[in-house]
């Protein structure tokens, strides 16, 4: 797009201008950002090409550490996808009006994360060429099949939730945006499916959105509970726990809230949406993050106290390894830096301002990622029977460059999907927000102008 685009495009209101201008004009920064993400993805693809060619031997996984960062990264992505349900369902059904401008961001993140999670799990397969055997020879008794079913269900519901939330705005884009390329016009025309803001349509949309908001809730809980069962159905130390379901779900909500805060900060800055994603939103999200972290802390204590008190066999070895052994630095970084300190800091009002909150959220996100590493890998290194007479490489797990490249490119893909969706569709609801939270926004526009 040319720089003149903005001048040619006329907006009906300042609000439309604020929320739609980034759909019309493309900055150099945006292009560079996309190029960077694509570049990372190409490196990841090359790493995956090597993995397909030579087998999983290019990874650091071996017979004992048979799952590595692919699986922990998969769990992480499933975790952050839960944030969609937090906003579209929990906050919405509880009539938290303030959260409305954030619903779409959360749904976009949820859809992107769940797509990435599905891809990562295929990357982890030793025989991706046999992917369809999962359908051909399906065994419903296997927790993996439960996971496949629930993830695909959640993917469909998340896409629907995103779509119905954005539908009226697509129609608005179709009607109001004139200075856009033909393919974009066509895209809006097709995806708007003849939406005309007819009262009947609106009524139907509200009904569907309510049904989905309720339907997504059990699915969201199930998706991460079932993922926890991939571990809890085995005898490994640290996994053989009845606490694992709620532990995973609560951790996921915490990580998801942190991801949303971080995304809010970036989007607000890049798209100049200070009047729409306000300090009040950060304040509220900060409080929500404390609440979710406290719940997670509770399940953390549950998860570790019992085994640490009893110190039985391999379970005790596993705990020792985490608390004072070779995983101790990572463990304490995760527990202190990613959980305890954020809770303490966030108790102070100043820390709930956008920048400090975004920084704290980044630590929470990092902690959440490494926490999943600590859940998956050390457990596998403490089998019941001793590990003897094996090659040195079987004893440790230090991910190879291929694994890091693929993992980093999964993040690049996540950001790519999010960026493209934000670029194509308005990220803050145009109509809805205007009606529902008009006062709060206008108040903030005034406030921002003053300051």
């Amino acid at each position, binding site marked *: 797009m040319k720089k003149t685009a903005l001048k040619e495009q006329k907006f009906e209101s300042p609000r439309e201008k604020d929320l739609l201008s980034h759909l019309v004009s493309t900055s150099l920064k945006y292009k560079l950002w996309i190029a960077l993400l694509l570049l990372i993805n190409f490196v990841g693809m090359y790493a995956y090409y090597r993995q397909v060619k030579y087998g*999983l031997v290019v990874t650091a996984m071996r017979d004992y550490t*048979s799952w590595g960062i692919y699986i922990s990264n998969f769990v992480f992505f499933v975790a952050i996808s839960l944030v969609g349900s937090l906003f579209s369902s929990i906050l919405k059904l509880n009539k938290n009006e303030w959260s409305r401008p954030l619903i779409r961001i959360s749904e976009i993140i949820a859809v992107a994360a769940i797509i990435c999670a599905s891809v990562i799990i295929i990357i982890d397969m030793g025989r991706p060429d046999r992917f369809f055997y999962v359908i051909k020879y*399906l065994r419903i008794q*296997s927790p993996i099949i439960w996971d496949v079913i629930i993830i695909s269900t959640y993917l469909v519901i998340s896409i629907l939730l995103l779509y119905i939330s954005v539908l009226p705005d697509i129609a608005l884009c179709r009607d109001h945006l004139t200075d856009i390329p033909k393919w974009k016009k066509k895209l809006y025309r097709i995806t708007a499916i003849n939406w005309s803001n007819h009262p009947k349509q609106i009524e139907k949309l509200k009904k569907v959105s309510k049904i989905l908001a309720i339907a997504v809730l059990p699915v969201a809980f199930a998706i991460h509970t079932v993922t926890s069962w991939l571990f809890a*159905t085995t005898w*490994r130390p640290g996994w053989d726990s009845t606490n694992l379901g709620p532990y995973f779900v609560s951790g996921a909500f915490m990580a998801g809230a942190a991801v949303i805060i971080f995304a809010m900060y970036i989007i607000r800055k890049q798209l100049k949406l200070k009047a729409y994603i306000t300090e009040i939103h950060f304040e509220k999200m900060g409080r929500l993050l404390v609440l979710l972290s406290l719940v997670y802390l509770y399940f953390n204590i549950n998860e570790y106290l019992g085994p640490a008190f009893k110190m039985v066999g391999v379970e005790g070895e596993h705990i020792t390894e985490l608390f004072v052994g070779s995983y101790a630095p990572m463990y304490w970084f995760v527990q202190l830096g990613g959980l305890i300190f954020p809770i303490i800091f966030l108790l102070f009002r100043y820390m709930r301002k956008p920048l400090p909150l975004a920084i704290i959220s980044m630590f929470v996100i990092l902690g959440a990622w490494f926490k999943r590493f600590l859940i998956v890998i050390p457990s596998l290194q403490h089998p019941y029977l001793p590990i003897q*007479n094996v090659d040195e490489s079987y004893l440790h797990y230090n991910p190879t460059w291929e694994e890091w490249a693929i993992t980093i490119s999964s993040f690049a893909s996540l950001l790519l999907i999010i960026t493209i969706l934000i670029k194509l569709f308005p990220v803050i609801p145009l109509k809805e927000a205007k009606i529902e939270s008009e006062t709060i926004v206008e108040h903030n526009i005034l406030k921002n102008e003053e300051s």
Partner: protein
Amino acid sequence: MDDKNFNTDSRRKFLKKLSTGSLIAMSGLGLYSCKNSSDKKTTLLTQEGKLVQVSNSEIEEMEHHGVSPKEAREGIPGQKFVMVVDLAKCKNAKKCINACDKHHNLTPDRPYIKVLEMKDNKKSSPYWMPKKCFHCDNPPCVKVCPVGATYKRTDGIVLIDNERCIGCRFCMAACPYSARVFNWGTPPNESSNISYSPETSVPSKIGTVAKCDFCPDMLRKGKLPHCIPACPNGVIYFGNELDDTVTNGEETVRLSTILREKAGYRYMEELGTKPRVYYLPPVDRLFPFKKDTQENNEL
């Protein structure tokens, strides 16, 4: 062993065996000629090393390892295989590992059998524990497999179909005994043109799981799994639970008697996996415990 099935060696069976032995000769010497014309004769090498002429019409096209995929999933009728490992006799000679590696075409870095140095507590003496797949009756690996690539047969054996395995490695995470290995890279024999059967586990395939299979191809022939005759000390007993007999190739004993008298146990009974491998405690040992001495290593 249940010998009933194997004593009535028919002519057909003889030829089948003959062709098994001569498979290598056929492919190696290029003597495998057209088998459709009944007049032609093929020279075959018998197991005893003699060359014999056999009419082509007598030669059946051999499925290299005997059974159909369906039979390989069902198991050998009338059998319930069971293994007893006498820990009092093991001196870590590693002959079982070598025999297993050889017949399953394995590289030494990822054997199906491991001989572990065990020590139950600080004060008790260490002992060697040969460990293979326990072929559990309540197998955690089979329960978690999303595609039924690993399965339990009527004869008690747990097998892997590496033509179905998707390489998710959930079974490896689920197995509490670390019995399973993975083909992380290209296995050495993957490109060989032996036709695959889950009963032989050969050839291994990249990106799939493998483990001890109790050598069902040998069992079908009425022979013991490779590791058992290879053991110089007769550590491993094998047999049919329904017959209540187990043998180590030299000595045949009653399963119930030996388990009762020698206080046989299964490893980690408390997990409820119901292994088909029993251990006899390392008491009254034949050999003193020696850690990887020259004698042991030269093998």
